[in-house]
């Protein structure tokens, strides 16, 4: 058992949890449904794992279960991202009639947001 390796992984995990709490805490309640859907798509990253166990010389689960694992994970990834995109496209700052104006304001706020990133 390689403790150094395990510890390195645990470090990554713990730090990522803290980053997650920090980032998620800033998401406004109005976006909580798209947020759940977005994080849903992100955990579809198990698709990487599913492909790694499925597409090898001898699949570890047998062909049927391997296909099922890849299928479930990619359903999660593709479905999750498309649904998130659909929802986010609906959120508008003002009624569609004034949409042009709304976009302009959006860019101003984006600049402010990028400035927030500075340490």
């Amino acid at each position, binding site marked *: 058992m390689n403790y150094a390796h395990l510890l390195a992984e645990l470090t990554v995990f713990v730090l990522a949890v803290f*980053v997650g709490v920090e980032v998620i805490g800033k998401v406004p309640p109005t976006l*909580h449904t798209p*947020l759940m859907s977005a994080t849903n798509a992100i955990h579809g990253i198990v698709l990487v794992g599913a492909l790694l166990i499925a597409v090898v010389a001898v699949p*570890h689960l047998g062909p049927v279960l391997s296909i099922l694992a890849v299928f479930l994970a990619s359903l*999660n990834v*593709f479905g999750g*991202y498309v*649904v998130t995109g659909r929802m986010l496209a609906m959120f508008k700052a003002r009624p569609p009639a004034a949409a042009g104006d709304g976009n302009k304001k959006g860019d101003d706020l984006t600049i402010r947001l990028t400035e927030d990133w500075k340490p």
Partner: protein
Amino acid sequence: MIATDTTSLLIAVAYLVTGVCFIVGLRLMSTPLTARRGNMVSIAGMAIALIATGFQLDFAESWWIGAIGLGAGAAVGIYFARSVKMTAMPQMVAIFNGCGGGAAAMVASAEYLKLDPAVQSVAPDLSIASVLTAIIGSISFTGSIIAFLKLQELMTGRPITYPGQQVVNGLLALVAVAGLVCVAIGYEPVPAFFASLVASAVLGVLFVLPIGGADMPVVISLLNSFTGLAAALTGFALGNDVLIISGALVGASGTLLTLMMGKAMNRSVANVLFGAFGAVKPTEGGGSSVAADAVVRESSVDDVANMLANAEHVIVVPGYGMAVAQAQHSVRELADELERRGVEVKYAIHPVAGRMPGHMNVLLAEANVPYPALIDMEDINPEFPQADVALVIGANDVTNPDARSNTSSPIYGMPILDVDKAGRVVVLKRSMKPGFAGIDNPLYALDNTSMLFGDAKSSIDKLVGAVKTL
């Protein structure tokens, strides 16, 4: 897997970029203005990870397994994601979540079973990670399926309870943990692994059964965090950092939302985790402060239309009933009509209104209601006393004044929207049947409350017509 040192280094860098993309993507969701860009960044990250993974695969023999699985998953996922109605979003999120959990459990099982029998006991860190993934992933898989069935109304949304429920759940959890211990110490590891897997799959079913529809925001958030945790544990089992980072992000997000929802329902995390959900059950009128002879005032469409058109400030309070009736577009139409007459319309959003966090916001956004008009509970509550009319559409328990003042009420202590403080309250409701928790709502018997019975959508459509003719 014939990767040179340079290739594996590049793959590791690609996975790092993916992790960064996910974090930046979520960070951009801090405002609706940049959220779409955030989703794009997240998609880019996922694409990078998948391309990098492609370089580690051995396509010679079983490329078709990946092609079929990926092609079919993408096709089915995209089809449902595009065709699902916004009102069905909670069950859609639940089922996608379950897919992720199921995939994680399968990956972990494969990873564990391919280990050499000798190694199965020699490398406890890998085997423990695999068993834990199998446990959490399968709870999430079967639990999400039950949540989906309840939300889709393929089974009753009411809590399903039976005597000894907690004991059965406790025993199943014990079997899962015992299996984990056996694997860790190398005692009959393979049967123990499967015992854990099966016990937790059954536990997932039984753990969601007693949870009622109105508590779904908590359950969906919790299952989301479970799948995140399962993905992270898969990362430990496979030694893959990008899975660990992504899973940790999702786990943190789900846990945070679970805590928020618990707080909004005045339930502790322990209460949420140890399944006392059945506690809020229909009580036989017990704990209600509604007098037996209380009468409710039924109102007509024309009266309500007059009241609304002559108001200055109207606060709309949407609930799950609006989603069921698919009334969001009609609500928007009514608000437009009122605003044309100079009435100010705002929307009060309770954190647990609906079946998932932010459910009402998505529905109203679909109906083109600008998001700045949607106001959270803490900010809107001080405005109710100045509002002329509070229009309650299919919301019940989140407006129950008993939660504020009646210590014997099952929902006592739950933060509510103070609709009773508005000048007039109009409640759109199907019938006088109590709300989900089966608790009477004294709001309906107040002097300033009038009821408008019927399907929310047709009532509002009639209101729109009546306001137009005024």
